[in-house]
């Protein structure tokens, strides 16, 4: 079951000029653009994956982004975090990201929170969004967003990458498996620093952004109940059917 699209906001002439190329996409049209303009999407964090997701959503004309990311730009961010710049090293990542997003789309409304997702802030962040896109590098943040998205009945796009591989699935509360269905225990082997190319985050982030666009506009079919896995080493894709886990402590009652 797809989500109810957010309330549409009327387009003006400038909107029509900027997003004209999208209107002719079958199943989208001006109505789809109105839904994007009326939408709010949470993206956490805005590093390698989340930066691409946020940039593509800003380019597509999503009206509002809710961004959560702490810390300052480091030199080692720059191979993949394309919203960051060399000149911004040592300054706020989020400020740099917002500046870049506004350069592309000055009409974009941004709620920027210079914190990473935690149990303390996740409810308020998710409440600000119609859709959540999870691009966090730590499972503790992912599980917090999953739990809160399920509780608030918000769709959650799960994007992750490692080395030349990536995974994307879309969680529809009460309909599809949630992250805790897939991983009922915190994965012990995951480490914060991992091998990756920026082009991998670009590829996976674009798919995640498209999932959000589809959810918001009613276009196409999201990866609901399906896990897309891509290996860019030999450019192979795999899609697996995933199932809700009976008795899942997070979503069984959803």
């Amino acid at each position, binding site marked *: 079951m797809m989500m109810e699209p957010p309330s549409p906001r009327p387009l003006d002439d400038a909107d029509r000029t900027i997003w004209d190329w999208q209107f002719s996409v079958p199943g989208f049209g001006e109505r789809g653009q109105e839904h994007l303009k009326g939408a709010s999407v949470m993206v956490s964090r805005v590093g390698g994956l989340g930066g691409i997701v946020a940039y593509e959503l800003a380019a597509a004309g999503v009206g509002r982004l809710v961004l959560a990311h702490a810390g300052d730009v480091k030199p080692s961010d720059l191979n993949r975090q394309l919203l960051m710049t060399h000149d911004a090293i040592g300054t706020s990542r989020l400020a740099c990201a917002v500046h870049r997003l506004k350069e592309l789309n000055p009409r974009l409304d941004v709620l920027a929170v210079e914190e990473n997702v935690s149990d303390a802030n996740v409810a308020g962040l998710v409440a600000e969004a119609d859709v959540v896109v999870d691009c966090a590098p730590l499972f503790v943040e*992912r599980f917090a967003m999953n739990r809160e998205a399920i509780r608030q009945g918000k769709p959650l796009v799960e994007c992750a990458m490692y*080395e030349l591989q990536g995974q994307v699935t879309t969680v529809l509360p009460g309909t599809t498996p949630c992250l805790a269905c897939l*991983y009922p225990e915190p994965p012990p082997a995951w480490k914060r620093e991992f091998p990756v190319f920026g082009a991998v985050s670009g590829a996976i982030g674009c798919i995640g952004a498209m999932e959000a666009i589809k959810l918001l506009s009613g276009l196409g079919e999201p990866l609901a109940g399906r896990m897309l896995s891509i290996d860019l080493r030999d450019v192979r894709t795999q899609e697996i059917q995933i199932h809700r886990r009976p008795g899942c402590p997070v979503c069984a009652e959803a």
Partner: protein
Amino acid sequence: MNITVAWFGQLRDAADVAEQEVSIDPGATVASVLLDLAEAHGEPLASMLRRGEGIASTLLVSLDDVQVMDPQATTASPGSRLVVMAPISGG
């Protein structure tokens, strides 16, 4: 009979191979196949696959493109493709 086992995420690093052909007994369960592979590969793969006497619940396993919910009750067919994914969280 033979099946293909493909490793994803950090499991691939630990297995040191992207995929492999495995000879299994007819009727072998997914759990027994993975435990045999843990034994054959040794560490570090073994401790990523096992949890106690069984299979780690943090693995996402699919057989012929369908998630395996109960590895001890699921059996492979000749030519099956078993995919074993470690949870990844790169963001």
